[in-house]
């Protein structure tokens, strides 16, 4: 028997869709393992978010609006999750595979002296073992792994891989005690928002992505953003355009950027270099617009339209917006 703990990444009571995906999946995994599904929600705004999580099929939501979580980087969160895992005993910790989630997950794993399986897209029970399925090497292989030599396990879960479904009998919300005797030294001075995207790239169901073929920085704001908005999605980019300073690096997808797998990925003026491909080739549907019929992206896109990227993007935005208001 093992319990399941989800780490809720949040700030000021706001979280991402992946939290609800984790909450939904936690129930399934807890049932497989014959344990309970727990969530840990920490920092300013935590109580309100905990109330919201009651609508998901969890057993217990542990909450503390500890100001240290907002003031100090990562460490307080790691302490809480570790403390809960030790209190529960044998347990599986699920964290989102985001920048912050990976950081928390790797430290919790180290504290518990256990393993971590990253970027997991499916979880199942085989021969009494929890099997974690994850694409590796840029989607070139699908791996199945399990934990051994340990009573704990940490899994970083790829956003968008699991459905988020409200339901359940209503979790108990209860306070979690602040771990005692800790001092913190790494201080967060300020937050700066650059891409004020409401939807994170890693969890967007639709990504409108641009490359050098768009010609300049301007269309990212004036064309791709409205198109992404019409889809309720987010804007991504290649490294070439991030290097050119057209967009911040936080928008870069690929080997040295973010790994995404939205339901729909539209690539405007992107050649489809291997380093870009490995960050997005597990997307549901891939559509590319490129003036070069021989662009490498044609080898793995479901549809390649040979045309001017900027013009097609502009016209497609019009069509999608018209469809929405129709």
């Amino acid at each position, binding site marked *: 028997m093992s319990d399941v703990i989800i780490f809720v990444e949040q700030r000021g009571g706001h979280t991402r869709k992946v939290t609800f995906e984790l909450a939904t999946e936690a129930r399934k995994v807890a049932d497989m393992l014959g344990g309970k599904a727990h969530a840990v929600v920490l920092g300013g705004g935590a109580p309100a978010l905990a109330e919201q999580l009651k609508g998901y099929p969890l057993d217990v939501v542990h909450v503390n609006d500890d100001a240290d979580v907002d003031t100090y980087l990562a460490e307080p969160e790691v302490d809480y999750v570790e403390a809960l895992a030790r209190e529960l005993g044998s347990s599986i910790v699920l964290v989102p595979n985001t920048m912050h989630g990976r950081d928390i*997950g790797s430290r919790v794993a180290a*504290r518990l002296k256990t393993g971590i399986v990253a970027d997991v897209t499916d979880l199942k029970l085989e021969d009494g073992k929890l099997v974690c399925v994850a694409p590796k090497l840029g989607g070139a*292989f699908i791996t199945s792994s399990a934990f051994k030599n340990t009573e704990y396990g940490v899994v970083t879960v790829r956003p968008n891989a699991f459905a988020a479904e409200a339901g359940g009998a209503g979790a108990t919300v209860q306070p979690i005690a602040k771990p005692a005797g800790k001092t913190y030294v790494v201080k967060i001075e*300020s937050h700066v928002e650059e891409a004020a995207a409401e939807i994170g790239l890693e969890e967007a169901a639709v990504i409108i992505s641009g490359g050098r073929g768009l010609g300049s920085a301007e269309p990212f704001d004036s064309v791709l953003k409205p198109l992404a908005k019409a889809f309720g999605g987010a804007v991504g980019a290649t490294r070439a355009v991030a290097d050119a300073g057209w967009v911040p690096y936080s928008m870069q997808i690929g080997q040295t950027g973010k790994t995404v797998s939205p339901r729909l990925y539209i690539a405007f003026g992107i050649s489809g270099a291997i380093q870009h491909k490995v960050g997005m080739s597990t997307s549901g549907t891939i559509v590319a617009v490129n003036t070069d019929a021989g662009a490498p992206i044609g080898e793995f896109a479901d549809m390649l339209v040979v045309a001017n990227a900027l013009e097609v993007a502009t016209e497609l935005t019009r*069509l999608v917006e018209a469809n929405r208001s129709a």
Partner: protein
Amino acid sequence: MKIAVTVKIVPDTTAEKKIDAATKRLVRTGMNLVMNPYDEYALEAALRLKEQLGADTTVTVVSMYPENGKETIRRALAMGADDAYLISDAALEGTDAWGTGVVLGAALRKIGFDLIICGGLSDDGTTGAVPGALAEDLGVPGIANVRHIESAQGSLKVQCETDNGYQVVNGPLPALISVTMAVGEPRYPSLKGIMGAKKKPITTFTVAELDVAGAAGAANAKTELLSFAPPAGRGKGQVVKPDDSAQGARVIFDYLKERKLV
């Protein structure tokens, strides 16, 4: 100041990857080996700091690799690192992220450091778990996703990337940071650097010397690979050559509609 950079040796990204059916590990023989691209950024960040802080700052490269990886490590020295430590031992084959943290930690305790800089992910495993494991093992503050080092004299002030921007973070030294590629494009080794690298010291540690037998190798790993398979292939799709852009957009729209994506 003593800066240590952790470097992983990985198969070339552009090379086709194979997995050995018996060992379930990546076939490394016959592969062109390179420095993990993220670690090149970590090294670049270290070299820039050294340029800023002056001559009494040193940059040491630390790498763990089952076989002899000296040739790959020479590139790091040619880029400008002062010396290198290689933990090279057949017993390391199959060590997982947790074990890697313990092994590197043991080496770094021997070597000494004020600041450790790691790449944020590795190119072959993409677990991104080693920096966190290493910081925990050493008991030093760990700061992840650093995109810019504002200052590192006496204490640290850095910018950490977040999902929609960044946060300014400060903390004491010694510490460990892991960097994103926004820290700056890695330099190419100069001819002078390449020549000079031949004379720079590379020290090798074994698992026994570091006393980490309990963390090394597949037997001690906390995860096991059960199976791997190529995904259901994504073949070449359709190529559409529209008369004009408006028609191109229409074709896409209809296709998305058919797939219920709009």
